[in-house]
C-alpha cells in the first residue's frame, strides 16, 4: 500500500471540490456566465488553489526527489501546438454545456445522479477516441 498518499490526497481534493461549489453545475454555469448574471464565487476557488500551488510548487520541485518516490514525474512538452489549442477549446465547450470539468464530474459520482454516470462514461470514451486518433501529445520526464 505504498500508494496511500494518492488515496489521502484524493480525499482532500474531493472534499475541496465539494466544499468549494465546483460540484454544483448551476454554480459553475453561473460562474462562466460573465455576460449575464455572473456569479464570481468560483473565482476564489481557483484563487485559493493557485496561491498554494504558486507558493509551494517551485519549492517542492527543487527537491532532489519526492518524499515517497524515486523521482518527480513532470510534463516536458512545452510546445503551444494546435492539439493544445483545439483540445482546450473543445474541453471548454463541453464544460460550458454541462458544468462539469473532470474532477467535479468524478467527485459528483458520490451524489448518484444518473446523468453524471453517463457524463463520466462519455468522458472516458472521448479520451479513448482522442488517443485512438493519435492526438495526445503529453509526455512525462519519467
Amino acid at each position, binding site marked *: 500500500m505504498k500508494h*496511500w498518499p494518492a*488515496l489521502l*490526497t484524493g*480525499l*482532500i*481534493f*474531493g472534499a*475541496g*471540490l*465539494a*466544499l468549494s*461549489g465546483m460540484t454544483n*453545475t448551476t*454554480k459553475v454555469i453561473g460562474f*462562466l456566465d*460573465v*455576460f*449575464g448574471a455572473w456569479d464570481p*464565487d*468560483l473565482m476564489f*476557488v*481557483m484563487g*485559493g488553489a*493557485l*496561491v498554494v*500551488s*504558486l507558493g*509551494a*510548487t*517551485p519549492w*517542492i*520541485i527543487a527537491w532532489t526527489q*519526492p518524499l515517497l518516490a524515486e523521482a518527480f*514525474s513532470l510534463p516536458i512538452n512545452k510546445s*503551444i501546438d494546435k492539439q*493544445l489549442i*483545439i*483540445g482546450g477549446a*473543445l*474541453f*471548454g465547450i*463541453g*464544460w*460550458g*454545456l454541462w458544468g*462539469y*470539468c*473532470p474532477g467535479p464530474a468524478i467527485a*459528483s459520482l458520490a451524489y448518484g*445522479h444518473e*446523468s453524471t454516470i*453517463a*457524463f463520466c462514461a*462519455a468522458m472516458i470514451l*472521448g*479520451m*479513448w*477516441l482522442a*488517443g485512438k486518433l493519435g492526438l495526445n501529445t*503529453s509526455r512525462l520526464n519519467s
Partner: protein
Amino acid sequence: MEEFFEPIAGGILIGIASMGLLATLGRVAGISSIAWGAFAGPDREWRLLFVMGLVAGAAILHTLTGNPIPSAPEGSLPLAVIAGLLVGFGTRMGSGCTSGHGICGIGRLSLRSLVATCVFMATGIITVLVMRTLMETLL
C-alpha cells in the same frame, strides 16, 4: 465575506491536495490524465486510489458539514453525453484540464498551461453565452 469562505477554503484544500501528491509521489494532480490512467494505465494503482478518494472525499464533506448535496445537473441525458465526450476528447487532446493546466501547470509557471487555461475558460464562457441566448430566443 462569508459567501466567499467556502470557495476559498475549498480552493485551498484543492491546492494542498495537489501539493501533497507532488511532494509524496512526485505526481501532478491533473484529474483528466489520472482518470484516463486509472481506466487504461499505466500505473493504475495510485490513480485508482486517487479517483476513489475524490468520490469518497465529496461524500464525506457533505456528511461532515451538512451542506446539501447539489441537485442533479439541468439538461437532457443526450446533452450530458455530448458534453462528456467533448470534455474527455478535449482534455486528452489538450493534455489537461482545470486541475492539471489551471492549478498545477500555472503553479509551475508553464506558459503552455496558461495558454490552455485561457482557451478553455474563453470557450466555456462563450458556450454559456450562446446556450443562454439560444434558450432565451426559443422560450
